């Protein structure tokens, strides 16, 4: 029991949870709205897309890389899907869009995987290149434009609701989107993959020590390749969810999200150097960022001050866990100054 408490106190997730609770209480105190059913549902709604992206970013970080290409990858995969289906006049269900988008995501992920598994160059560099190629291809070669009317199956899926949460005081209602189940499925899937498959342990092993992994008999190349295929597929899912929920295809809507998502995952305690981190942490980190981004008005932070507040939060949030870590390691190897 004592070791459990001890372990908890050392865990980054614990501090993150404290920060989230403290922040929630502040927001509640300032707005009286945080703990209302519909606000919680709204946050869950806002969490879906960044959450799915965060899973992919997390997988790559654990394997020792940093992927900045997933928003561009998702945009291209989903743009191509929507374009094809709209042009073909598809009016069936959402299964085909998902199938297509995931297939495109897999192909583009394989493109990433081909480079990362064969070239000994930091993943950040490679994906910086592929991200530009993806968005350039979408905007240049495909001449992407906004697609206002997406296939009916997609918009129905985007509107599909699990349940409606009503705020008894104000009577406001918020819909819990069906896509939240997708987020859960992706997280659970990633959890099972990481914990119970050799492939998943291989990702941790590679992140810990790549050459040791290959000596232990892991096929490092193959693992890396399929890792990026999987990340491509999850990114495409996130992109399709966003497009479906907006009921419009904005090709550039997702671009620029990458750094915030990576920050969220790192905030959750995943090491940039690879090998360590938990999905719980990654999700808590994402939740924290989502809460902040979606509570500025609730707290009453003036529009002009919102960027400032976000910056302060990132610094304070990461600072807390950093100080925690430093204090721990300083105990071991004191004043190296």
């Amino acid at each position, binding site marked *: 029991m004592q070791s459990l408490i001890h372990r908890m106190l050392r865990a980054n997730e614990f501090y993150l949870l404290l920060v989230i609770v403290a922040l929630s209480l502040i927001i509640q105190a300032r707005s009286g709205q945080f703990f209302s059913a519909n606000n919680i549902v709204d946050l869950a709604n806002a969490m879906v897309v960044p959450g799915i992206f965060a899973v992919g970013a997390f997988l790559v970080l654990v394997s020792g890389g940093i992927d900045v290409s997933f928003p561009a990858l998702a945009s291209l995969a989903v743009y191509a899907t929507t374009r094809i289906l709209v042009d073909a006049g598809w009016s069936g269900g959402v299964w085909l869009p998902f199938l297509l988008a995931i297939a495109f995501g897999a192909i583009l992920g394989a493109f990433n995987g081909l480079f990362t598994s064969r070239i000994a160059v930091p993943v950040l560099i490679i994906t910086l290149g592929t991200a530009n190629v993806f968005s350039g291809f979408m905007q240049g070669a495909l001449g992407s434009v906004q697609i206002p009317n997406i296939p009916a199956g997609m918009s129905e899926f985007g509107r599909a609701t699990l349940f409606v949460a009503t705020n008894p005081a104000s009577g406001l209602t918020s819909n819990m989107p069906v896509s939240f189940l997708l987020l859960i499925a992706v997280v659970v899937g990633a959890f099972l993959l990481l914990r119970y*498959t050799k492939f998943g*342990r291989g990702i*941790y092993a590679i992140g810990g020590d790549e050459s*040791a992994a290959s000596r*232990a*008999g892991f096929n490092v190349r193959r693992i890396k390749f399929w890792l990026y295929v999987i990340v491509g597929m999850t990114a495409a899912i996130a992109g399709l969810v966003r497009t479906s929920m907006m009921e419009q295809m904005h090709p550039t809507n997702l671009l620029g999200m990458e750094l915030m998502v990576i920050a969220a995952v790192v905030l959750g305690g995943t090491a940039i150097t690879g090998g360590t981190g938990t999905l719980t942490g990654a999700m808590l980190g994402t939740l924290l960022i989502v809460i902040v981004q979606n509570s500025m008005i609730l707290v009453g932070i003036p529009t002009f001050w919102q960027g400032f507040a976000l910056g302060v939060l990132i610094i304070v949030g990461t600072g807390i866990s950093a100080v925690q870590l430093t204090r721990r390691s300083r105990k071991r190897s004191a*004043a190296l100054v």
Partner: protein
Amino acid sequence: MGDNVIAVRGVSKAFAGVQALQDISLEIAPGEIHCLAGENGSGKSTLIKVISGVHSPDAGTVELGGETFTKLNPREAIAHGVQVIYQDFSVFPNLSVMENLALTAELSDGRPLVSWRRMRQVATQALEKIGVEIDLEARVGTLPVAQKQLVAIARALMSDARLIIMDEPTTALTRREVRRLFGIILDLKARGIATLFVSHKLEEVFEISERFTIIRNGKHVITCLPEELDRKSFSTYMTGREFDETRFAPVIEDASPVLEVSGLGHDNAFEDVDLSLRPGEILGITGLLGSGRTELALALFGALKAETGEIRINGETVHLNGVRSAIAHGIGYVPEDRLTEGLFLERSIGSNIVISEIDAFVSSLGVLDQRKADAEAQRWVDELRIATPDPENPVNTLSGGNQQRVVLAKWLATNPRVLILNGPTVGVDIGSKHDIHRVLRALAAEGLAVIIISDDIPEVLENCNRVLVMNAGRIVSELDPATTDEHDLAALMSEDVDATSKGA
């Protein structure tokens, strides 16, 4: 010999510009304990990597269990009973001891899923087999070096291997652990498992091996039985040079100590340490891993703040509140782990040497006088005979022994009064070792005060004029090497075993 565990025939391997192996052949019989010897960079690790399928040879074949391979991958090697304990252990620092032990076994069965229950069983058994206790849940990265190595050894031993290859397995082990390892090797032999053993510690090699293969510059020199060689001819085969083994006799003129320590203590790493050191002395501090020797060294170097006691330099009490103040007081420190603490691997040999005194080459205008710095670097390259065609090359082009000379050069260049060396010849071949010892003696003769921290007993006895034995954080005795023999010292170090294990 058709019944060899392994037969390497005519293997060659070149890396960009380096012929690492040239027409090497080697055979090992079941149950044989075979020693592979050679200087740093002679190609031992490369040969091992060829056998284990990490590198594919440019020419030649590897025969395993009657099958002949021109190309081998790690899985095939493992499947044919080859297990390697690598020089860098090849453990996963981020994973638990359990996974480190069991993953390889899990991988070799065909299922895509892992079973944590099975892994726990396998890991428990693996540790039982070598008779050690390590927390299965602990992350390997947080373990001390010796335990990491034990994990690597346990992992290699658990599969039904027919050949265990150990690349310098004893560098980080204490004597006690070495004894246990040798016990394990003999046990393996009894079960018909062969061992290929690489070590730079001669006495170990002679103690355990049944046959030697010596290589030099990637070429086979000789394969023979231990009785056909004495230590001297062994060294000569390895290096092509001859060495005399002599003892250090200090020339101490100035009687006042340069460094005095009294009542020094830190947390529960070490306590109540008194010592004094005069110019020209070489003081040995020896003790098992975890005896507090490294913490003491760090405290003397200002990297660890001592909580009690005081340090006096030339009679004056000083407060070392950081590495820089230690350097300012003329203290230098050659760290234990040169790769992570001592060297800037991608940077040039020259800048590695001059980095600690670089401000001395800056003119009043703030401009670095590169020519002066280069000359200084070249001086040390010559002085310490660092084997490189060009000091502009990165340090990682050097072999271990030469890298260690670079670290040494860096500190000598700061012109210290006291030089502390923590494990100065760990993993260094006898040629380099001899050179390093020669340099240290020469420096002492010029008036430098030296502290050598090492558990290599011959090294300490041959090169020091006084030896302190540390045990469980305390200095338990002071010896005169001239009147001490190896076995007495070893006994002193491992005395009072209970107290020692507490510190580990």
